[in-house]
Every structure is written in C-alpha cells, then in structure tokens.
C-alpha cells in the first residue's frame, strides 16, 4: 500500500495546546502543507497574533515573529518592506484582527501591502474565557453577554472580510471553513492562492476561516461544528468575496 496522507512535513512534533476539535490545528496543517508545496519554507515569515494561536511558531517550522496584540498586519507590512523577496503572512483570530487590531488591518489592506492575512473567526474570545467579540452573533451567549448579544446595547457583528473587500489595495478576499473534508480542500486552495498573490506582488489577500470554539461556546467539538453550520454560515456566508 502507498502512503497517501501523513502529518505535514513542516508541522512540528509538538502536541498542540488547542482544545480537542479546535479549527486552529486543521488550519495550521493546511498552512504547513501549502508552504511545503510551494517550496518556500526557507523564505516564509509568519506573524502570529495574541490569542489562542499566539504559539503558532511552535507548530509550523518556519520563521515567525509574534506581534503585540492586534498589530500583526503592521509588523507584517514592515517585514515585507524590509525583506521584499520573502513571503509574509499573518495568522490572526477575530479578537486580535477585528477588535484591537482593526486600525492596523484596515490600513495594511488599504495600502495594498503584498502580504497574506489568515483570519480565524470563531465569534468569541477563546483564550481569555469566551467573552463577547465584535464578531459575536446577535443573540449568541458568551461569558460577557449571558443573555445573548443585544443589538441596542452591543451593536451588530462585524463582517471584516466584506468591509476590506471594498479597498483597492486588496486583491483577494474569501471566506472558508475547515469542518468537513471538502471544506478543508477548498480552504487549502484559498490559502495557496493568497500566498501566490503575495509572492507575485498583487496586493493583500485576505482569507477568513469561519471556525468553531467548542470550549468557548460550551459545546462538544462535533456539536460546535453543527452549530456553526446552522448559525454562523447564514451570517458569515462562505465563498469568494473578491477575486
């Protein structure tokens, strides 16, 4: 028999600290696969955020910088300008990118920095204990909105991908997920295209991955994926937003 699948070469042997069933692990795997397939492991620099994925540098065997909270796009802009031959990407959650890092993200997008942004949106602050995020759905219960998010108090959930698609510096915006085999294959193609765009100097590529946070949502991993299909996807619609 021929081996048809094994752990990606660039994924380290370190056991990931993520909760069982967390989407981060799957996204890490496809990022590692794309970098290996493009043969750019020695010329790729990742910028990791503050949040659960702060330790991304322990799991994917490339060069990393860990940015201050929300500042990954600003750090990546500087790295790309100083090292224009490198492929530079950020890996950020919604608490990092769409809250404290909104300004850095929008302006990096608007300047058309030649970087790729991987945005993992699970509609909650996972690491700090499941607090409400700007992306939390209306009516969704979190530790700081125990009665559910209310529009007249907390405003509306923030669709960052749709917003940055309006900016001229952004060449590619897509929204994907990684909860089924088919969706993993599609998300991998999207990340590959984003990295190719960054290498080709086409501008900023923005890949949102709608994800589950089963421990923050107080669900089982499989139950969280089902809840995501029923509740997240109608609002955060999957597919290409700008190509």
């Amino acid at each position, binding site marked *: *028999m021929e081996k048809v*699948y*094994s752990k990606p070469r660039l994924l380290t042997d370190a*056991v990931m600290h*993520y909760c*069982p069933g967390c989407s981060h*692990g*799957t996204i890490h795997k496809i990022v590692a696969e794309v970098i290996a397939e493009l043969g750019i492991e020695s010329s790729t620099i990742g910028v990791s955020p503050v949040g659960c994925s702060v330790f991304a540098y322990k799991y994917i065997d490339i060069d990393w910088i860990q940015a201050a909270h929300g500042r990954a796009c600003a750090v990546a802009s500087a790295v790309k300008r100083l090292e224009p031959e490198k492929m530079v990407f950020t890996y950020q959650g919604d608490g990092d990118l769409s809250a404290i890092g909104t300004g850095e993200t929008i302006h990096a997008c608007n300047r058309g920095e030649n970087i790729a942004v991987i945005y993992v949106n699970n509609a909650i602050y996972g690491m700090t204990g499941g607090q409400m995020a700007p992306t939390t759905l209306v009516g969704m219960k979190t530790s700081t909105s125990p009665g559910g998010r209310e529009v007249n108090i907390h405003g509306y959930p923030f669709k960052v991908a749709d917003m940055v698609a309006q900016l001229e510096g952004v060449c590619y915006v897509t929204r994907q997920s*990684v909860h089924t*085999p088919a969706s993993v294959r599609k998300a991998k193609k999207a990340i590959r295209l984003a990295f190719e765009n960054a290498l080709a100097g086409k501008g900023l590529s923005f890949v949102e991955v709608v994800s589950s946070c089963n421990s923050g949502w107080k669900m089982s991993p499989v139950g969280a994926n089902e809840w995501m299909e029923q509740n997240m996807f109608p609002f955060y619609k999957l597919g290409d937003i700008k190509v």
Partner: protein
Amino acid sequence: MAKGRVEIDRERCKGCEVCIGACPVSILALSSSVNGKGYAYAEAVLPEKCTGCANCALVCPDGCIEVWRD
C-alpha cells in the same frame, strides 16, 4: 481485503471525534480505554472496510492520522 488502512497516533489524539463523522464508511469509533493524557482516542473498529479516502486525516486537527491506499 481492505483497500485502505489508517494508523492513528493514539497518544497525540484528543478524542474530538471529528474524524468519526467524516468517515464515509463509518469504520472509526472512540476507544473504551484512554491514552496518557486521559483522552479516549479514535480507533478503526472495522478496518476491513477502509477505502483509504483520507477524509478522517484531512479533518483531524492534531495530525494524528496516517492513511495508506492500494
């Protein structure tokens, strides 16, 4: 004769069960014993039915699964 084979790193597995639902021929199940971290782990209970499609490995967040195919 199975067309495929899966090998699951039981010490790395966290028992999230995402692979179990992804298997089109339902050959995976959670073990009744636990690994060193205290998690029940995924195992192939009907290995002869494996087609080697690698769907389980694709969705495994922890990269625990290796797949072989004829």
